[in-house]
C-alpha cells in the first residue's frame, strides 16, 4: 500500500506541474487532424493538420507542425468586392518551436510561425518562460510575441501593405485546492500598419445627390488592445467524475471595441478514463468600433476619413455549442456557431457547422 502511494505520488508529481503542461519530455508525439467548416455564407474551409514533437536532448523538445486551409468562398464579402466571383484559395501555415526545461521549475520556450496565402503572409515569433513557485503550487508564465503581416492583392503585384505587432502575455496559475486550478491572464497588444481589406469597398452616400459611390477601406494605423481572462478548472465528485473548465474574458481597445466572452466546457470521463465526452458552450458580446457605420454619408465632399465594411467591427454577438469526444488516441467534435452582426445590413446572421477529427499517438 505504501509502495502504491509512493508510485501514485511520484506519477502525480511528474504529471502535474501547476500549469499542467506535459512534463514527459521523453515521448515522441505525432498528432494529425482534419477540420471541416461550412457556413450559410457559402464559405467552406477544409483544414488538414499535422504536428510532431520530438525530444532532441534530455530537457529539450522540438515541435514542428503544418496546417493547410483549403478555402472556397462566395460570401457577401466576396461577391460585393471589387472583383466579384467565387474564390478558391489555400492558406499554408508552418510552425516550429523549442521547449527547454532548464530546471524542475523553470521552462523556456520559443516558437515561430509562418502563414502564406497568395495575397497574405504572416510571420510570428514568440519567446517566453514559465516558472513554478510556492512549492509548485503556482506558475508564472510570461511571453512576448512579434508579428509581421504583409497584405497584397491577387493578380496585382504593385499593391503591398504591411503591419507590425507586439504582444505581451502574462499568465498566473494557482492551485486552489486538490481539485481546482485558477488561471489569470493579462494580454496587451499594439498593432501598427495596414488593417483594412484591399478587396472591400465601402459605399458612401452623397448628401446632396442620391449618388452612391464606393471607396476603399481606411482605418487608423495604430490599434492598442488589452484583454483580461479569468479561468477556473475544477473537478466535481468524490474522485473527480465531472470536470468543468470555464472562463470569462474582457477585451478593450482604443477603437472603442469592447467585448465579453463567457465559455464553459464540461467533460465526463468514462470506461476507466479511456474515453472522455465533453460539452462546450461559448457566448460572446461585442460593441462596434467607434468609426464603424452601416452606411457612410459624405456631406462635405471629402468623405469619411475612416470607413470600413468589416462586419467584425460592427456590434457582434455569437453563440457556440458543441460536443467533443475522445476514445484512446482518437478525437472528434461537432459544433454549431451562430454569429449576429448588428448594423451590417448585407448579412446580419451567419451559421456555421464545424466538424473536427483528430488523433495523437505517443511512442
Amino acid at each position, binding site marked *: 500500500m505504501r509502495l502504491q*502511494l509512493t508510485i*501514485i*505520488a511520484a506519477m*502525480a508529481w511528474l504529471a*502535474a506541474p501547476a500549469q*499542467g503542461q506535459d512534463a514527459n519530455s521523453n515521448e515522441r508525439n505525432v498528432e494529425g487532424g482534419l477540420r471541416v467548416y461550412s457556413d450559410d455564407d457559402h464559405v467552406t474551409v477544409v483544414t488538414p493538420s499535422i504536428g510532431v514533437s520530438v525530444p532532441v536532448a534530455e530537457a529539450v523538445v522540438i515541435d514542428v507542425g503544418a496546417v493547410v486551409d483549403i478555402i472556397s468562398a462566395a460570401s457577401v464579402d466576396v461577391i460585393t468586392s471589387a472583383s466579384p466571383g467565387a474564390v478558391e484559395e489555400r*492558406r499554408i*501555415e508552418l510552425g516550429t518551436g523549442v521547449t527547454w526545461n532548464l530546471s524542475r521549475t523553470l521552462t523556456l520556450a520559443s516558437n515561430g510561425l509562418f502563414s502564406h496565402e497568395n495575397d497574405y503572409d*504572416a510571420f*510570428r515569433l514568440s519567446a517566453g518562460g514559465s516558472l513554478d513557485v*510556492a512549492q509548485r*503550487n*503556482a506558475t508564472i508564465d510570461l511571453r512576448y510575441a512579434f508579428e509581421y503581416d504583409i497584405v497584397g492583392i491577387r493578380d496585382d503585384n504593385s499593391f503591398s501593405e504591411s503591419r507590425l505587432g507586439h*504582444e505581451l*502575455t502574462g499568465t*498566473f496559475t*494557482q*492551485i*486552489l*485546492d*486538490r481539485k481546482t*486550478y*485558477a488561471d*489569470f*491572464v*493579462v494580454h496587451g*497588444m499594439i498593432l501598427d500598419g495596414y488593417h483594412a*481589406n484591399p478587396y472591400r469597398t465601402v459605399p458612401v452616400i452623397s448628401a446632396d445627390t442620391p449618388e452612391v459611390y464606393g471607396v476603399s477601406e481606411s482605418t*487608423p494605423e495604430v490599434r492598442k*488592445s*488589452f484583454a*483580461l*481572462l479569468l*479561468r477556473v*478548472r475544477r*473537478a466535481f465528485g468524490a*474522485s*473527480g467524475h465531472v470536470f468543468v473548465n470555464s472562463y470569462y*474574458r474582457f*477585451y478593450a481597445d*482604443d477603437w*472603442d*471595441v469592447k*467585448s465579453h*466572452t463567457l465559455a464553459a466546457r464540461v467533460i465526463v*470521463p468514462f470506461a476507466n*478514463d479511456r474515453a472522455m465526452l*465533453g460539452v462546450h458552450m461559448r457566448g*460572446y458580446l461585442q460593441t462596434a468600433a467607434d468609426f464603424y457605420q452601416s452606411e457612410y454619408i*459624405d456631406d462635405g465632399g471629402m468623405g*469619411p*476619413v475612416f470607413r470600413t465594411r468589416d462586419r*467584425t467591427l460592427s456590434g457582434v454577438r*455569437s453563440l*457556440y455549442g458543441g460536443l467533443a469526444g475522445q476514445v484512446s488516441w482518437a478525437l472528434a*467534435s461537432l459544433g454549431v456557431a451562430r*454569429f449576429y452582426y448588428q448594423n451590417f445590413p448585407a448579412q446580419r446572421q451567419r451559421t456555421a457547422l*464545424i466538424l*473536427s477529427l483528430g488523433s*495523437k499517438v505517443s511512442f
Partner: protein
Amino acid sequence: MIFTPRIDFIHVVKKPLPIVLMIILLFTFGCVQVKAYQREVLAHPAMQEPTWPLLDRRDQHLFLVREASRGATGDTGGGCGCN
C-alpha cells in the same frame, strides 16, 4: 463628415484595474498548499489547459477571424483566414 476615432486607451485601462488587483490578492492570500501526492485529480487530462490542443487551437482561430477581439485565450493569429 469627418470621422475620428476616440483614443482613450488609458481611460479604458483604468476601469478594470481594481478588479485585477482584487483577483491577484485573492490568489495570493486565498490559496492552500497542495502536496505532490494530493494532485491525482489535478493531473487528469481533463484538467489540463488546453484539454484538446488540436481542437482548441483551431477553434480560437475560427473566432479570431470572425470577431474583433483577440488575446488571452491562446490564439496565435496567422493569416486572414478568408473572412
